[in-house]
């Protein structure tokens, strides 16, 4: 199945007031075997001074890793069991790949590895879509919403009840692999997605409650159906700016996948 992608990322209203950069990142990759999409939210406080770079590295390494994973599954003609087993290794592979990318980016400037990774701390949400399955991965805050062909709204990954206020899990943590959640859904056992929505927490924090967030995503779906992907893409940055200004003030990144 081919997928269309809409997405954008804007610098938060409070970041503009305080002279901070946009510390979110997003990217996607499409090939014959799969479509992969990721968003990340670099931590804002002063101890994570390179978190904008850390977020970009997180989306880059997750796209590369997911793509590689899908190609391997395809070439090997993997069974479901093999795919499930290989997914078990993904968290450690991802953390390792991100750390390695940080090591390169830091170029020996920070000797202590824990301090080094902290400087680049970030969350990550990523999705891989192949012909047979969807794989969702998340560490830290942010939202995944999936609308399915049977009209349901799913959250493929459980909400982490331990995270309130401005606390989050992070790729920079010592035990990051234990905070990385994954969900693998085979399309022969799950209704196919008609919209997959990813957002950094600056988006959800701009609404009073979860119901308002879900309504906004439903509105996106209807607007896309009415006006088309290209038109909505051109409007998205302005909408996200308005969202940050009137809502959370945080950086806001939204990315969506829809079947072509």
């Amino acid at each position, binding site marked *: 199945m081919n997928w269309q992608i809409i997405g954008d990322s804007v610098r938060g*209203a*409070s970041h503009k*007031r*305080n002279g901070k950069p946009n510390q979110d990142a997003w990217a996607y990759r499409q090939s014959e075997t799969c479509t992969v999409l990721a968003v990340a*939210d670099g*931590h*804002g*406080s*002063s101890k*994570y001074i390179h978190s904008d770079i850390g977020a970009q590295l997180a989306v880059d390494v997750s796209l590369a890793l997911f793509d590689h994973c899908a190609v391997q599954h395809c070439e090997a003609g993997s069974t479901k069991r093999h795919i499930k087993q290989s997914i078990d290794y993904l968290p450690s592979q991802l953390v390792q790949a991100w750390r390695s990318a940080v090591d390169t980016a830091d170029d020996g400037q920070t000797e202590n590895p824990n301090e080094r990774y*902290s400087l680049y*701390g970030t*969350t990550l949400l990523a999705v891989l879509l192949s012909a047979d399955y969807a794989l969702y991965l998340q560490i830290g*805050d942010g939202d995944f919403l999936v609308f399915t062909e049977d009209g349901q709204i799913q959250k493929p990954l459980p909400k982490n009840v*331990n*995270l*309130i*206020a*401005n*606390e*989050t*899990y*992070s790729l*920079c*943590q010592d035990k990051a692999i234990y905070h990385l959640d994954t969900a693998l859904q085979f399309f022969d056992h799950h209704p196919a997605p008609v919209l997959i929505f990813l957002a950094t927490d600056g988006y*959800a*924090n*701009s*609404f*009073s*409650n979860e119901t*308002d*967030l879900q*309504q*906004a*995503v439903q*509105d*996106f779906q209807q*607007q896309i159906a009415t*006006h088309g992907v290209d*038109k*909505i893409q051109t*409007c998205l940055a302005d*909408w996200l700016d*308005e*969202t*940050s*200004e*009137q*809502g*959370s*003030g*945080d950086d806001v990144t939204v990315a969506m996948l829809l079947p072509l």
Partner: protein
Amino acid sequence: MEIIKRPGGAMANRPLHFFWLADWSGSMYGAKIEQLNYAIRNAIKPMQDVAADNPNAQVMVRAVKFSSGAQWHITTATPVEEFKWDNLSSNGVTDMGQALQLVAEQLDVSLMPESCLPPVLVLVSDGQPTDDFSAGLAVLMSKPWGKKSVRIGIGIGQDADLEVLQKFIGNPEVKPLQAKNAEDLVKYIRWASTVVLQAASAPASQVKDQVSSGVVPIPQAPAADIATDDVW
């Protein structure tokens, strides 16, 4: 050109609940309670100015007063633009633990959703608790928002129990402030109402379990005024 409506309804800025916990026990009689009333009233305008500078936070103020028992002084969460301070008098003992329990009831996630900003609790007292302070603190800290709250302790005069205020703060890097005179009290109340409020209203993300100093780094407090002779 066709204008397409932004998906989603009204945007919501993030509520920030600010609680005063004020001691109005008998030992506050006279200059102490008068200065506390003055200091809080004096801080209202600067507090409103700080809140206005950050439209992404919606600051709501409540106050608990404690002496023999604890009760709400400002019951309803009041938008800071409408915040007024009615003078406290003084009477009774220092049931601080009950004040903590009263605030804790409002820190439930069912009443304060996850999208809120960390609440700010400013405890002002001139003495030692006369009730079970530890039990009150335990109830407060049993609430997720209690643990994540920004807690400031201000002692008034020489008899304030700084050890208890330190337990309330729960962060060795943040010390209780001891106001030994009227000038210090005004300065500390204004600092809590403005500088601390500002820090709490735009907190950056913090990595869970990596933060020993609370979810919001507390800015440096102003120095005490050592020049004055007018000491409580």
